[in-house]
């Protein structure tokens, strides 16, 4: 198996420094450690920059009867108060459906729809002044009944669309005809992104009323378009730039529009630069989170645990508006099968409208919730049959690529052509010593009355492509300057995942120059237009292809020029390690750039890429929404304290198929970080809302992401050395951003295993998430009902 270090592949092993398949350090690594990497709040602001604070609602659902802003306007330092009546264009910051008002105060319908909703904003000389002034508002509300959770919304049938279904085969009869039947429910909590850098936007006025915005966003184009719509100006009047984010994880896919729009409006109204920067508590109150889900299941299966038929009802708390919830709930359905062939299946999805913050994208985009559902089903089947859950998992795996079996069609009628889960799990079972350890743990538990250990292996199959097909496109812009130095730009954004570096490695490889000849530049809507969000793990697949296409165009022109210059055939010209040669002719890349410029050859090009093969008929629930699948598996070992419910991870073995890695160190970093984040979602991270719908956990003092001491003392993380992408993806790599998040599910299943062994009866633990000490203790002590 491959650790950190160069690996061979189909690219020519190059002698350049920093080409593909090299574990090059993150391009900003040194700057990160020196504090010189700039985030939005670090950009030196002009002297007259305003600070803007957004006032948030503390009601879940209420009509505003009256608002008195006089005291706010008169407070020290206040320059202006921003309400919906100041908006020249559209009072909306929603990504798609037009249902996220920028401000409630001054809106045509002054209706508060969740606690934490933006009411109005105050622009002042200092942030403290703005914040203080906002507290002086007097608002008279008429409270309305609020739907706060999934149960309430299900009762009220409050949905964003009719329940949506995937159906293949006759599930009902398949279940009733099966030898065994089970049904149950699992509830899983949401998750706060907790990017370390909160949202921020800096708005700078330009000529003609134009605005330049520096944002912390995964989707600069969307911010550009939303701000233009809000100001009622064409898109070309707004320029959005994103150098880097201090973490994104999906939380900066749509949520950056509000702070950007507020800053831009302040600039529009005052002509002054303006900044919005949420403090942690506001960030956690105002931004959406991972959807909490409730999944009900009924399954029929045989003595081996092989599923004959299954029905799953997925209900998601979407919050007060659509945001991206429909696509997120779709992806939960797309992953309700995970690695398992479901011969007869009905998946029904309920998109619940609630008076809580509008939930949004988060690494995995619904996939993790869908996957927890089926992993739970498998776990319970195994418990019912008294089998090792791994055996039940294997009995249900999709047929391996290249085998004759027809057990390879998903609930959405896509044929899985690239399934490698059997082989990958074989390798992991061996390297993790799963069977021996499982036996040892059982023996150990017999002699340990208070502490119990558990182990589980869970697999992952994650579909790669935006399921909203038109988003699967990307653009890039590459310049070669006359000294041979290169400027690289593309539509992807850098949030720490190493995208900028990987794309630069690809361009270096294409031109055969050292990586340090390439200047990585901020994402900029003025350089590459109409970009897709950096999301769906697609950043490298899309943008590296686009950048390589741009480089190829320039390279083609260079070759054309040299062929004439040297009177050789173009195919004889070779780019290799900074030298370009053909027979006896040779020239350095820098000289070539200069010579080509002198001969009036264009050394700048855009590049474009659109993912092939994909299509999706949402109405019919049929098609090929994914170009390919990324696979992985994890073995997790945990221990619990049966008196307190406290629990911890002792060891994790992770194996991920990243195809042939462009940068193994970066990929390993994604895998480890994703696993820890996934395990955090399912263990310590708990969002608590009170009875009035107010979030009580809005800072790290109360919302607990894993810290360094939660890391399993034994972590063995590997790229799968047999991995290879059968599709024509950049350098045969595979996407890595989201898939390993779901390796964290192994932690929940291992806890379930430990609890099952702690119970005096043989009842199924029924463990929901997050598996806090409280949930674990209750699962240990719950009266057996099955």
């Amino acid at each position, binding site marked *: 198996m491959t650790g950190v270090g160069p690996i061979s592949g189909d690219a020519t092993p190059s002698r350049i420094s920093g080409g593909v398949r090299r*574990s090059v*350090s*993150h391009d900003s*690594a*040194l700057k*990160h*450690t020196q*504090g010189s990497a700039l985030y939005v*709040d*670090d950009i*030196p602001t002009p002297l007259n920059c305003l600070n803007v604070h957004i006032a948030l609602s503390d009601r879940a659902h209420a009509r505003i009867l009256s608002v008195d802003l006089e005291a706010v306007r008169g407070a020290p330092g206040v320059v202006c108060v921003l309400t919906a009546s100041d908006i020249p264009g559209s009072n909306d910051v929603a990504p798609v459906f037009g249902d996220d008002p920028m401000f409630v105060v001054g809106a045509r319908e002054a209706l508060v729809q969740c606690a934490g909703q933006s009411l109005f904003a105050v622009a002042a000389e200092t942030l*403290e002044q703005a*914040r203080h002034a906002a507290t002086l508002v007097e608002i008279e509300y008429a409270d309305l009944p609020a739907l706060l959770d999934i149960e309430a919304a299900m009762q009220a049938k409050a949905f964003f669309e009719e329940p949506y279904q995937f159906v293949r085969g006759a599930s009902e009869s398949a279940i009733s005809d099966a030898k065994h039947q089970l049904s149950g429910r699992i509830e899983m909590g949401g998750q706060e992104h*907790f*990017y*370390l850098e909160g949202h921020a936007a800096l708005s700078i006025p330009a000529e003609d009323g134009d605005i330049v915005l520096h944002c912390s966003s995964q989707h600069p184009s969307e911010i550009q378009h939303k701000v233009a719509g809000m100001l009622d100006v064409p898109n070309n009047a707004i320029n959005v730039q994103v150098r*880097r984010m*201090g*973490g994104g994880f999906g939380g900066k896919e749509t949520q950056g529009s509000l702070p950007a729009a507020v800053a831009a409006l302040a600039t529009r109204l005052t002509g002054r630069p303006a900044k919005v920067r949420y403090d*942690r*508590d506001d960030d956690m109150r105002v931004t959406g989170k991972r959807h909490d889900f409730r999944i009900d299941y009924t399954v029929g299966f045989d003595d081996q645990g092989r599923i004959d038929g299954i029905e799953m009802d997925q209900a998601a708390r979407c919050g007060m508006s659509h945001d991206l919830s429909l696509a997120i709930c779709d992806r939960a359905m797309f992953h309700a099968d995970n690695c398992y062939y479901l011969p007869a299946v009905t998946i029904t999805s309920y998109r619940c409208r609630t008076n809580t913050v509008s939930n949004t994208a988060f690494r995995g985009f619904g996939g993790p919730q869908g996957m927890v559902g089926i992993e739970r089903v498998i776990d319970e089947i195994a418990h019912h049959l008294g089998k090792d859950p791994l055996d039940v998992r294997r009995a249900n795996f999709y047929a391996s690529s290249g085998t004759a079996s027809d057990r390879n069609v998903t609930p959405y009628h896509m044929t899985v052509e690239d399934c490698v889960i059997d082989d990958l799990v074989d390798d992991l079972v061996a390297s993790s010593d799963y069977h021996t350890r499982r036996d040892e743990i059982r023996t150990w538990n017999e002699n340990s009355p*208070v*502490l119990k*250990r558990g182990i589980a292996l869970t697999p992952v199959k994650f579909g790669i492509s935006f399921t909203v097909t038109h988003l699967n496109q990307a653009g890039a812009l590459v310049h070669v300057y006359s000294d041979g130095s290169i400027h690289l730009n593309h539509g992807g954004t850098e949030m*720490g*995942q*190493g995208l900028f570096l990987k794309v630069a490695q690809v361009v270096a490889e294409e031109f055969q120059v050292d990586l340090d000849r390439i200047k990585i530049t901020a994402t900029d809507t003025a350089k590459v237009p109409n970009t897709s969000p950096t999301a769906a793990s697609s950043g490298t697949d899309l943008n590296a292809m686009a950048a390589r296409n741009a480089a190829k165009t320039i390279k083609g022109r260079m070759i054309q020029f040299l062929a004439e210059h040297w009177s050789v055939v173009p195919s004889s010209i070779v780019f290799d390690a900074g030298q370009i040669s053909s027979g006896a002719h040779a020239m350095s890349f820098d000289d070539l750039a200069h010579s080509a410029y002198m001969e009036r050859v264009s050394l700048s090009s855009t590049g474009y890429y659109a993912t092939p093969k994909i299509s999706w008929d949402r109405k019919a629930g049929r098609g090929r929404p994914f170009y390919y699948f990324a696979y992985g598996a994890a073995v997790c070992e945990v*221990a619990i*304290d049966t*008196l*307190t*419910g406290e*629990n*911890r991870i*002792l060891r994790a073995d992770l194996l991920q198929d990243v195809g042939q890695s462009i940068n193994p*160190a*970066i990929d390993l*970093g994604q895998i*480890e*970080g994703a696993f*820890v*984040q996934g395990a955090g979602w399912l263990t310590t991270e708990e969002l608590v809302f009170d009875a009035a719908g107010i979030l*009580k956990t809005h800072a*790290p*003092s*109360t919302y*607990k*992401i*894993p*810290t*360094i*001491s*939660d*890391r399993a*003392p*034994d972590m063995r993380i590997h790229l799968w050395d047999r991995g290879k992408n059968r599709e024509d993806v950049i350098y045969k790599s595979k996407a890595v951003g989201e898939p390993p998040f779901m390796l964290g599910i192994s932690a929940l299943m291992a806890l379930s295993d430990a609890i099952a062994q702690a119970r005096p009866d043989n009842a199924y633990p029924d463990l929901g998430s997050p598996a*806090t*000490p409280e949930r674990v*203790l*209750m699962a240990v002590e719950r009266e057996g009902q099955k």
Partner: protein
Amino acid sequence: MRDHLKFILNGEVRRVDKVDPTATLLNYLRDSQGLTGTKEGCAEGDCGACTVTLTQHAPDGGVEHKAVNACICLLPMLDGKSVTTVEALQGKAGQPHNVQKAMVDQHASQCGFCTPGIVMSLHAAGLNADRLDGETAPDILAGNLCRCTGYGPILKAAEALGSKGEAAPVRSDLSALESLVGEDMTSGETKGRRFFIPTRLDQLDTLCADHPEATMVAGATDVGLWVTKAHRQLETVIYLNQISELKTIRTGDDTLWIGAGVTYEEALPALSKHWPDLGELVRRLGSKQVRNTGTIGGNIANGSPIGDMPPALIALEASLHLRGDRGRRTLKLEDYFIDYGKQDRTPGEYVEGVEIPLPDKVDRLRCYKLSKRFDVDITAVLGCFDIAVREGQITSARIAYGGMAGIPKRASHVENALAGQPWTEATIRAAMHEYKHDFSPLSDMRASEEYRAKAAQNLLLKYFLEMQGDRSQTRLVGLGSNLS
């Protein structure tokens, strides 16, 4: 009396006039010094992105280096001290510091936002020649949250440093600190709001008499949040951290004295020596950064129902020493806590120290802190037990809890049910029924009423089982655990 602050920032002496009494170091660095390498991640001392290194006189006469959270470090706390930020680590020619190099080499940053804080935590550890390995680094870095890496590469960087963290020249030394020493008190006033930094108890007595309404601040790990989270404006603030008389740790014949100004970190060795479990509790109570500034006295004085020191100290029968302009008095620590938000302390009185009886022969104290996360989390339930058994009979039982009531509180009914009974599981199980007479816990974001009630009882059973055997049978983490 000096009317301005004087401290060293990245090797240069700074004089700051007209200081807001509760200005934070983080805002000073970012807003007025352009030092934006130090980040705001939470403004409550819980994420560590703002970690800087504080250099100050050590009790032994030398210098010591402490990682602290700049977000809740109030500027007057820096008077006479030296601060180093991430910008000052690299060499004059820009060559990276060892810590920076190790972090880059191990791919230990992704988004980079937490990175400066991690670099500074490692930097401070290096200056103190703290051992850095797989065992120590998780505690040194538990106060630095990272959301990207999963921590493995950071741990590798720490391990690679070993004890070589310190390489760059230390820009401040004893003589630099000594150049700052001036008057015996600093104070300041701006827009009618004022602060005082006394250096002696007699000054403090006078200040307390003159300003009974003043807020007293020791480490600001609690009061800092009044400022950054509640956005409260404090009118008069007395800073206690320069009073060396409050910083004594004294082992007597029968008792251990801990001055109110002793930080958790300073108290840790003495507490761990006599009561290993109390040491572990203090370790888990807060991050290194918080332990470096927060004080034992502050944890008691603020009267929080979820402060971790009081239940343990009540179980140990500690007494509290209060002092004020009307003199001194001593009371049982448990009597200090009257009701939620109400303590037996009059305006103008302050906590001088706590006196803890030393264990006679065996240390029987066990402390069980339950929280969602092991390190750096606020307690849901804390149970502290000291039960004496002679010849199979329970001779005395002291049991105190945090998180179960509006104040830290003894489980009196449970204690009574145990006293004089045989030391058997049957006795324990019978006593577990008594909890309902002692506590009616609440539900909040940390735990439900049901969990608190159930877990609190189970902790008594845990204590019983644990006293029969090895801690390794009952502990998932920390002291005695061998699950790794």
